[in-house]
């Protein structure tokens, strides 16, 4: 039975590992997109403009209140057809959004809402004097962001960011429901065609577990490095 997990066909091991790589790719790209959206969202919430504040507030409230699976299905269809319509209206012709781009986009949008809250909380926790001092030196806002805000915020935000990465990694499994081929989808195909449901779902679960446990190690190292300048409490 275990030779079904062999790396080469008829074994499914190779296909599963390829699926795992796709899962990691989606997760990393969506995470990056989420951080960008999170920074923008946090900026909008703290920037002082009322319109931007409410825009960001609506975004985070709605996304965080609706079940992820529903959001993913909704955004997957609405998002890809909407962007395709937009692009063709702009004269780019008939553009097809790839499943990969859609999966990254959808998970990134969901992730961005949670990132906004984590980053906002961390920025609020930076002592105000630090930012005022930077302003007093005449640093422009982008330089201030790069030199002061991000380095001071990261150690505070890191536990939250690590948590969100784990949630995202597990949420990638949801895009298998809209028919996108990643780890769980491959596992489903393997299980369906061999009728070895237990074996393959166990194997898929084990691969996810390795990825999450591995991420824990990476984040622990990152936290140690980022906290080296933070005095122990």
């Amino acid at each position, binding site marked *: 039975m275990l030779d079904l997990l062999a790396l080469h066909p008829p074994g499914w091991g190779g296909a599963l590992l390829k699926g795992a790589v796709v899962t990691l790719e989606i997760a990393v790209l969506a995470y990056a997109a989420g951080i960008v959206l999170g920074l923008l969202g946090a900026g909008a919430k703290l920037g002082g403009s009322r319109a931007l504040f409410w825009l960001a507030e609506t975004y985070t409230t709605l996304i965080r209140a609706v079940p992820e*699976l529903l959001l993913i299905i*909704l955004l997957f269809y*609405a998002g890809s057809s909407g962007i395709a319509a937009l692009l063709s209206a702009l004269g780019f012709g008939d553009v097809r959004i790839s499943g990969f781009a859609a999966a990254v986009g959808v998970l990134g949008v969901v992730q961005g809402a949670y990132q906004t809250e984590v980053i906002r909380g961390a920025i609020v926790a930076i002592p105000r004097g630090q930012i005022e001092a930077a302003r007093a030196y005449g640093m422009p806002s982008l330089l201030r962001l790069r030199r002061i805000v991000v380095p001071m915020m990261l150690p505070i935000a890191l536990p939250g960011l690590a948590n969100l990465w784990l949630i995202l990694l*597990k949420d990638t499994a949801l895009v298998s429901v809209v028919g996108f081929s990643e780890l769980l989808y491959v596992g489903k195909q393997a299980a369906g065609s061999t009728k070895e*449901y237990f074996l393959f*779902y166990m194997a898929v679960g084990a691969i*996810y*577990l390795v990825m999450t446990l591995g991420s824990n190690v990476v984040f622990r190292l990152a936290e140690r490095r980022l906290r080296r300048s933070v005095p122990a409490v």
Partner: protein
Amino acid sequence: MDLAWLPKYLPLLVEGFWRTLLLVFWAGLLGFLLAIPIALAQTGRGGILAMLSRGFTTTIRGTPLLVQVYLIYYGLGDLFAQTPEIRQSFLWPYLRDGFWYAVAAFTISVAAYEGEILRGGFLAVPRGELEAARACGMSRFLILRRIWLPRAIQITLPALSGEAILLLKSTPLAATITVIDLMGAANIIRAQTFRVYEPLILVAAIYIAIAAAIAVVFRLLENRVPSPR
């Protein structure tokens, strides 16, 4: 926005609404009951039970819920279907229905996440209160029932409220294993009316409303519990 299909499919949506609530109720209740021993096992000085509980928690929290749902529904379901004794038993009508598999999967998941929360709660109960109870001559079980557990729940109530909403938000996964909950109802409507957005948006609004209701219920519970502050 075209809602002409709504009257025809309203009964289906109502059915799905109740099924979603039942999923939350059963998985929330059973998961919480299972979380208590899991948390207790990890408060002690270690030993085999603590290791097992920690392994369980790590595994469940480290894998996607959807994989767990599939593992239980397809894996266990396949095993049951192949066992004639189970097929002929009175349990089979239940074991054929996706609903109880979904409840089982969500229960296990809730137990792992809430076990972790409760573990913190158990450890946060001031030692003096437990010592006082012991000094009054209460047995270990009586201490747990009267002091330790109620105090741990009181401390973790806000976190448990968040878990309840997370549970609600994960119930749509049941629709992937043929359970007709709110999400399942929306899928049927989508397939039969060819309308993609309206059913999904309507159902999303219902989920938001249920989440708000859960938040209110927990707020009331929090206010009911007398607190020293």
